[in-house]
């Protein structure tokens, strides 16, 4: 028997962060990786958000000698693709004036392959004194009197300690501890992507400071394109209930857009690798712990409820889990009851803040970008009617404004229910019911804005009198 304080299954961003934090607290820690090295089994969107730099000081040390795939950029491009598969417009965005801290003011994401990032991060854990065992599949949980007391590897070797399940979407720890047999079909997505290689200078020249693009579409679920130093990912996903055809069919639709083909030609890009993985994506993580077991990151269902950023929540929940585990160990009580402090701890983080509006955030993403035929089919033309209609010389401008207004009217039967079912509940959740009531009650709104009331009064007073 190998005795540890903390036994971590998985050496991804969550597992390595947990191992580092635990070792730094002086806990005897081991973490396991089934690949030959961390990152061997992982693919993901790999955008590292600036919140990581605010939360984890060591992120400042990431560099392109250790992680040659790195590219950061301040811009994101949003393509709009209509029902005929044509790019009808795009918008580039950069950090806005209301963004408050560095590096978020300078870039929106720093992109880095998992094959670079995961080993880089794992080294912080081993440097702190955690023991890493690679090429080792943990196949079972060690139980005594029906309670989990550790893990067992594929060779039958036993490791005793508090178990942190950092083993991703298909979590053995979750299954064998009885926390979950499988996800609900609307709690997890299948995500698939191509990696394309191309030269760094081509990306610099063609994309400039664009780090990523989202392809919002009426013919496939919203696809993402992430640029690395000398390559890019193009991928998409959707909940398990959505797929009516093989997912590759939809990914190839993105690749074969005329616009994408032109971009691939200009970048002289070549497909190099194809990857697929399950990505948990839900409004409310549940069953996060039991006796002597805590789930973190993907294993616990923590990717962001709006757009499924996964690395940041994995690292934040790892820290919360080790805080909870350390308290439990020093109290000599690692029961499910005691470990409920884990839920309190992660809910108090910025990950918990996202999940306060989790169901509404997940629902709006499900209803719009991941419902291409049902929603994007009217949303894209409606959006582009406004955007494209303004830059137009086909008629005198007053005529165009009336044409656009008339055209928008025909989208109301779809847009109004969408606003009622998705946008208002989200706003209510974010703003609170009291403020929301103010927004939706004209009398209260007026009372808050006397100048509008004044303007309305003058407009009516100046209006010609009705004829008797």
């Amino acid at each position, binding site marked *: 028997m190998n005795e540890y304080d903390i036994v971590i299954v998985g050496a991804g961003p969550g597992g390595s962060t947990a191992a580092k934090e635990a070792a730094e607290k002086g806990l005897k820690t081991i973490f396991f990786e*089934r690949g*030959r090295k961390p990152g*061997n089994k992982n693919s*993901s969107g790999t955008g590292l958000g600036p919140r990581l730099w605010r939360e984890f000081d060591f992120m400042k040390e990431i560099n392109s000698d250790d992680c040659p795939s790195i590219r950061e950029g301040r811009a994101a491009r949003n393509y709009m693709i209509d029902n005929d598969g044509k790019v009808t417009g795009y918008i580039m965005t950069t950090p806005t004036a209301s963004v408050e801290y560095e590096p978020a003011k300078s870039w929106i994401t720093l992109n880095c392959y998992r094959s670079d990032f995961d080993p880089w991060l794992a080294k912080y854990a081993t440097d702190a004194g955690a023991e890493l065992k690679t*090429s080792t599949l943990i196949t079972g949980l060690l139980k005594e009197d029906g309670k989990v007391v550790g893990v067992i590897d594929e060779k039958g070797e036993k490791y005793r300690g508090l178990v942190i399940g950092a083993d991703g979407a*298909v979590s053995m720890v979750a299954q064998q501890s009885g926390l979950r047999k499988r996800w609900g079909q609307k709690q997890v997505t299948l995500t698939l992507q191509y990696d394309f290689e191309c030269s760094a200078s081509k990306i610099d020249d063609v994309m400039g400071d664009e780090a990523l693009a989202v392809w919002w579409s009426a013919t496939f679920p919203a696809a993402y394109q992430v640029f690395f130093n000398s390559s890019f990912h193009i991928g998409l996903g959707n909940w398990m209930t959505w797929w009516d055809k093989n997912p590759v069919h939809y990914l190839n639709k993105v690749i074969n857009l005329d616009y994408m083909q032109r971009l691939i030609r200009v970048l002289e890009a070549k*497909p*190099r690798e194809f990857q*697929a993985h399950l990505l948990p994506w839900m409004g409310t993580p549940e069953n996060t712990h039991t006796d002597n077991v805590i789930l973190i990151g993907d294993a616990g269902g923590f990717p962001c409820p709006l757009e499924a950023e996964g690395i940041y929540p994995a690292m934040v929940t790892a820290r919360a889990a080790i805080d909870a585990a350390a308290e439990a160990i020093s109290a000599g009580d690692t029961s499910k009851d005691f470990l409920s402090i884990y839920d309190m701890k992660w809910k108090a983080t910025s990950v918990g803040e996202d999940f306060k509006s989790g169901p509404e955030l997940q629902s709006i993403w499900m209803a719009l970008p991941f419902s291409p035929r049902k929603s994007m089919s009217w949303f894209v033309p409606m959006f582009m009617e406004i955007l494209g209609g303004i830059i137009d010389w086909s008629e005198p401008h007053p005529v165009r404004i009336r044409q656009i207004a008339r055209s928008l009217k025909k989208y109301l039967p779809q847009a109004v229910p969408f606003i009622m079912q998705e946008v208002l509940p989200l706003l209510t959740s974010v703003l609170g019911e009291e403020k929301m009531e103010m927004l939706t009650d004209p009398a209260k709104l007026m009372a808050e804005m006397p100048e509008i009331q004044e303007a309305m009064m003058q407009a009516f007073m100046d209006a010609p009198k009705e004829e008797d």
Partner: protein
Amino acid sequence: MKIDHRKLQSRIPGTGDFIKIDNSRCTQCDRCLVICVMNLWKKRGDTVYIVDDYTSHCLECGACAQVCESDAIEFRFPAGGTGIVIEQG
């Protein structure tokens, strides 16, 4: 642009099965046939099966077992240090 996505992987060959189907539980909902991006699930008559050489193609995503609500598909990861190696993930 035709991409043969099935050829765009590296792997370290391993031994032993890691996916099984229990046909007595299978309800032939065919979700596994739709979801597998490598097209490894097939159907002959009323029998759903996984191709013989699946260990040379499987991406280890686990989608087949996830969609199998009847618990017919058993999935675990291949032995440590074997299977898919994602180099540019």
